[in-house]
């Protein structure tokens, strides 16, 4: 039996406005649904516990609209960002160096890998008291905690990327008598950039989380967002606490987006994942 299949014109590219709506629409809709859920949960609370979930207008007047709170949020975010970025500034080069060493020498990979996995499986929160006893309450222990949170993804993704290098390309370099270093710089590292950036995005998000967690345990000095979370809870200023939470998430998302953007700029012209 034959059946008639009518011709179908190729799909037109949607209008720019529609395309934007298709991209922005779903998260906005989901956001609205979550806000509604929040309002519903809040209405279910007894009157005297409702301060636990401030309403949108309270959040605005009690936090974001108030100049001193804004200044405090800004300052605290700066402190947190400093801890997170210092941690990353240490783990990115060291992690990349370890990734390269593990690629160069099988025994380095064999030696280091179990400890990388162990590092990833230790609950970092559980060793924070130990870090406290060893290093006190200053800046250094906080950075160390960020480093523990962010390290794993960097050498592992870089190693994965280096191993994905086409063996034909290695042969090509060998035929010209290229040194191992030249091969690494001109072939290995560029080839592994997409994988490495996937790792950097993960680590950057974890760096903000690590910085905030570290502050929850080390309430001292001019604190960052983590300390603000604790202090506002003690003072029953829940609007400010929610504001600190929102700024924390915004920072996490911000660094994630930054590394996505940077990756896209660096390799969208040649790598498919760069377009994602």
């Amino acid at each position: 039996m034959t059946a008639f299949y009518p011709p179908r014109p190729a799909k037109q590219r949607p209008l720019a406005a529609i395309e934007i709506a298709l991209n922005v629409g779903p998260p906005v809709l989901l956001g609205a649904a979550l806000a509604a859920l929040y309002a519903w949960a809040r209405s279910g609370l007894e009157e005297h516990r409702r301060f636990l979930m401030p309403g949108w207008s309270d959040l605005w007047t009690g936090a974001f609209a108030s100049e001193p709170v804004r200044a405090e949020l800004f300052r605290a975010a700066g402190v947190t960002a400093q801890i997170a970025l210092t941690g990353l500034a240490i783990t990115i080069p060291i992690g990349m160096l370890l990734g390269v060493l593990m690629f160069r020498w099988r025994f380095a990979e064999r030696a280091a890998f179990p400890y990388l996995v162990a590092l990833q499986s230790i609950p970092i929160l559980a060793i924070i008291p130990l870090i406290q006893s060893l290093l006190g309450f200053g800046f250094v222990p906080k950075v160390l905690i960020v480093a523990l949170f962010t390290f794993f993804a960097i050498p592992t993704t870089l190693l994965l990327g280096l191993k994905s290098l086409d063996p034909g390309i290695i042969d090509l370099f060998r035929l010209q008598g290229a040194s191992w270093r030249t091969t690494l710089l001109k072939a290995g590292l560029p080839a592994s950039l997409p994988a490495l950036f996937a790792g950097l995005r993960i680590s950057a998000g974890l760096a903000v989380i690590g910085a905030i967690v570290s502050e929850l345990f080390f309430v001292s000095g001019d604190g960052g967002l983590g300390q603000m979370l604790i202090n506002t809870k003690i003072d029953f200023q829940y609007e400010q606490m929610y504001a600190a939470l929102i700024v924390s998430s915004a920072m996490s998302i911000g660094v994630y987006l930054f590394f996505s953007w940077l990756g896209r700029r660096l390799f969208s012209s040649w790598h498919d994942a760069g377009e994602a």
Partner: protein
Amino acid sequence: MSEQATAPPPAADAAAPALSFADLSLTFADGTHALAGINLAVRPGEFVSILGPSGCGKSTLLRVAAGLVDYSAGALNVDRAHLGFTFQDATLLPWRTVRRNVELLLELRGAPPAERRRIAQEKIALVGLSGFEEHHPKQLSGGMKMRASLARSLTLDPKIFLFDEPFGALDEVTRERLNDELLALYARQGFTALFVTHSIAEAAYLSSRVVVMSARPGRIVAEFAAPFPYPRRDEIRYSADFARLSGEVSAALRAASAT
């Protein structure tokens, strides 16, 4: 520069071979016996094709000649100073444009930027990729990638050119067109070629000599001269000699695969 436009005559006399294997054997570390007593001498300017069953050691033989793999016994004589090698896939660096890919080998050899740029430009034009210099490999078709790969090898002005099934992944029409372009380059540059292929027609059309290898461990079991003068034109494909040569190679190949 090799600008002679005449066909390089295969030297019939006993000139020293450009590339020779004498009783060359290779057993890999895992015990795979890949090559068993290869005897082959390629004269300067000769174009030799190698056919053989899959896995018989053809790629390995080229890799031995290039120094990418060590052999276990016998002897190898080759001048590696001007060695060209094209792989089965184009092996372009995906993050580099066509121009920067073609410049790569000279860059690795430390040629100054202006010079390697000039040479790359020239070879890109030679393989018909002008206008695509700033394209990335992912924007090219399979045939164009292979051309870029060829242009890259040509930048070294190879005296000896090793080809590992360079056109194996292409459609018949593109393959035949690239065959003609390769013959034009051969006439122009006058290199010595060792060309691995699975296509009998390609081997017969391109080469002055066709050798057939046995199943692994690879040995050379048959040799045929291709009695067509260069420069060759498409008409020879329809000649009786071409049909006879193809038939003989095909029979040898079937016999080699059966063992």
